[in-house]
């Protein structure tokens, strides 16, 4: 529960002819996390080489490429499709080749036609662009070419120009440049070009067309429209084919992917001429099952044994949590998966996170809105991570409602009874009293002290489990030292000042009277001396482990005070709610209700809008504030005391089938 799933290292040795059945079995059981064989001259692995793929690997990959190409044409992706039913793998394999070919042929013609049409549209557009400048000159396009003694020049000018006779020219004036078409006798051509060059001439091609320009443009535009219509109908056809075959294609992809992965598994095994060795990790509870399955598949012709786990082994990590704590694994993976030898704090996170969230956003109204939002978003957010996230928010909002009942808050309004917890109401209305800031502050400080103490204790346990020799003792003592300093500081404070909700140690007899201390402290008493000793001893323990850590001592105060955000962020959300209520109801709606007029109704509507927008904003801030600050308290203040992370994800060889079955 507090540690990851226990893993065993399994070694499978068999002759090469057993490779296919054994990989098949391992794939089916989906428990064996293969440790890739690397040729690194390890002792005992001389003469081993990386294995070759099984037979049929290349055909399967070829088919897989085809399937994926088709899926690409149809833009199908497995994540967005809910499986309608399961195809039997054996049935599928019989028809795969034939069906793929048929679907391929069906779509190939259509996609080829589509690309051809797209190309023709491009070409027509190009032609239109060429003809367009000539459209202003009502001359048949065929007249622009086919002369022996004349040259036709067309292009753009930046300045106006006049070409002397014998030449004929037309200029179409534009905003920034003018279009010119000129017909000059061949012998005058160079002279005309010089003149044009001075006017900033750039040549334009003369379209090889016949007919009036506007008519030609219209022709091409009809062509484009026709092509577009045909493309639309092709897309409809492709869509129909897609709908018919989506399930089949995804099932094929799954089967072929399984085939390819199995066929390529030997690339991760060590092999000799006759045998192969597969090494990997299996949950300790499943060792017997895997062994039995491998034995059965190979007809007892394999050797399976459990290897001892070395301290330096990188063991894959699989969470081992009760089902209610599983969603919190999402937050753990965002930070980092625990190492195999580490305490897994998921369970604590799953309990404490909603409580923190509730402390911050303890409001029945916002809790209900969030809960409704969670159920509404279920339709749209898919996938394991998304589900986990929604479940976390759901739990958090339920706790938020509970805290809201304790706080007697509904969208910032008091609910008609005085709060059962420390009041967060900013105004003393509805029979309650104003906010109990000192109590709330000290409550959150207590939470911080306890949470950090828990973190440090876990740190000691982690060091006891992970380290060896002298360093182990030093590291454990350093963690103890941090605790001693923190509680020492607390003792000092308790002996100096009396505070609500905190033990009052000021009553102990003063041993040494020191005049002139701040806050009327008469002198040093027993508990102060004890606190001082704890602080000094703690610093010594910390320094023994690492002298540099001593400069981190102020973080004891800042980390504990950081938990004050539980109160501060919560109060700011209460304040925003209160302000929204005040503006919308007290300022806009209520005065108008006394004497209803047409303007009044508009003002009332404005009030309603302010109310809705304001509370929507506060809900969004509540999710951000409540969620982000709660998780941050875990990540920054709690985890840094004991948690390193960086574990390797347990990724068993096999496939979670969605569209097919054996």
């Amino acid at each position, binding site marked *: 529960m507090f540690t990851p799933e226990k893993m065993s290292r399994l070694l499978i040795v068999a002759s090469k002819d057993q490779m296919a059945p054994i990989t098949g079995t391992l794939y089916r059981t989906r428990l064996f996390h293969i440790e890739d064989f690397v040729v690194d001259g390890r002792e005992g692995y001389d003469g081993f080489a990386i294995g070759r793929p099984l037979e049929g690997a290349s055909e399967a990959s070829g088919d897989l490429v085809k399937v994926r190409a088709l899926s690409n044409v149809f833009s199908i992706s497995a994540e967005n499709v809910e499986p309608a039913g399961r195809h039997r793998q054996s049935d599928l394999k019989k028809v795969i080749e034939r069906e793929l070919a048929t679907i391929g042929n069906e779509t190939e013609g259509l996609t080829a036609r589509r690309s051809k049409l797209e190309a023709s549209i491009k070409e027509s557009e190009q032609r239109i662009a060429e003809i367009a400048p000539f459209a202003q000159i009502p001359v048949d396009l065929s007249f622009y070419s086919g002369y022996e003694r004349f040259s036709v020049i067309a292009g753009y000018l930046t300045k106006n120009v006049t070409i002397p006779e014998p030449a004929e020219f037309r200029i179409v004036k534009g905003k920034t440049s003018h279009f010119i078409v000129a017909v000059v006798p061949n012998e005058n051509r160079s002279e005309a070009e010089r003149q044009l060059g001075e006017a900033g001439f750039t040549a334009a091609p003369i379209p090889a067309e016949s007919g009036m320009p506007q008519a030609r443009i219209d022709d091409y535009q009809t062509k484009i429209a026709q092509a577009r219509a045909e493309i639309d109908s092709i897309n409809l056809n492709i869509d129909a084919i897609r709908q018919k075959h989506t399930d089949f294609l995804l099932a094929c992809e799954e089967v072929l992917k399984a085939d390819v992965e199995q066929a390529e598994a030997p690339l991760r095994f060590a092999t000799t001429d006759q045998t192969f060795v597969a090494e990997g990790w299996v949950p300790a509870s499943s060792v017997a099952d895997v062994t039995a399955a491998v034995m059965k598949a190979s007809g007892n012709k394999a050797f399976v044994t459990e290897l001892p786990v070395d301290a330096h082994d990188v063991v894959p990590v699989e969470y081992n949590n009760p089902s209610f704590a599983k969603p919190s694994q999402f937050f753990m993976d965002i930070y980092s998966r625990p190492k195999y030898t580490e305490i897994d704090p998921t369970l604590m996170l799953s309990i404490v996170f909603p409580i923190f969230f509730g402390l911050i956003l303890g409001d029945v109204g916002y809790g209900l809105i969030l809960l409704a939002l969670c159920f509404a978003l279920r339709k749209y957010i898919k996938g394991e991570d998304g589900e986990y996230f929604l479940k976390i928010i759901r739990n958090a909002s339920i706790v938020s409602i509970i805290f809201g009942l304790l706080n007697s808050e509904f969208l910032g309004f008091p609910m008609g009874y005085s709060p059962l917890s420390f009041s967060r109401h900013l105004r003393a209305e509805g029979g309650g009293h104003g906010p109990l800031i000192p109590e709330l502050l000290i409550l959150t400080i207590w939470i911080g002290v306890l949470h950090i103490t828990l973190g440090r204790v876990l740190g000691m346990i982690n060091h006891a489990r992970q380290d060896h020799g002298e360093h182990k003792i030093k590291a454990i003592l350093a963690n103890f030292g941090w605790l001693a300093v923190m509680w020492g500081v607390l003792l000092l404070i308790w002996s100096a000042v009396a505070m609500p909700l905190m033990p009052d140690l000021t009553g102990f007899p003063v041993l040494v009277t020191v005049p002139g201390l701040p806050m009327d402290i008469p002198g040093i008493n027993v508990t102060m001396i004890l606190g001082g000793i704890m602080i000094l001893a703690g610093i010594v323990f910390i320094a023994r482990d690492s002298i540099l850590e001593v400069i981190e001592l102020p973080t004891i105060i800042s980390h504990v005070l950081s938990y004050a955000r539980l109160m*501060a962020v919560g109060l700011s959300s209460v304040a925003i709610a209160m302000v929204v209520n005040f503006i919308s109801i007290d300022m806009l709606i209520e005065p108008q209700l006394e004497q209803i007029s047409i303007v009044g109704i508009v003002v009332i509507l404005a009030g309603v809008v302010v109310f809705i927008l304001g509370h929507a904003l506060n809900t969004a801030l509540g999710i951000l504030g409540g969620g982000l600050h709660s998780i941050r308290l875990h990540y920054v203040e709690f985890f840094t005391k004991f948690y390193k992370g960086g574990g390797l994800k347990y990724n068993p060889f096999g496939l979670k089938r969605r569209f097919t079955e054996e």
Partner: protein
Amino acid sequence: MAVEVVGTDIAAQTVEIAVKSQLGMKALGAGLAVGLTGIGAGVAEMGIGSAAVGATAENKDLFGLVLILTVIPETIVIFGLVVALVLWFV
């Protein structure tokens, strides 16, 4: 007689003014505490935030880590808020 009445009046007024201005100073202090720490947190998060977005664009797995780094300076403004609340209510 009359002089004495005026005298107590002035004394009462002076006390009232003193109390009110003390309240004003408190409000000012609370506002400064939240406002200045807010600016501080903003300035601190500015650099981290832009670097974080860059890092996430390069490698999505870093999201969790950079989120933590980005919210670390948030503590500054929380301290400011706590100081303001303590000033105002305690």
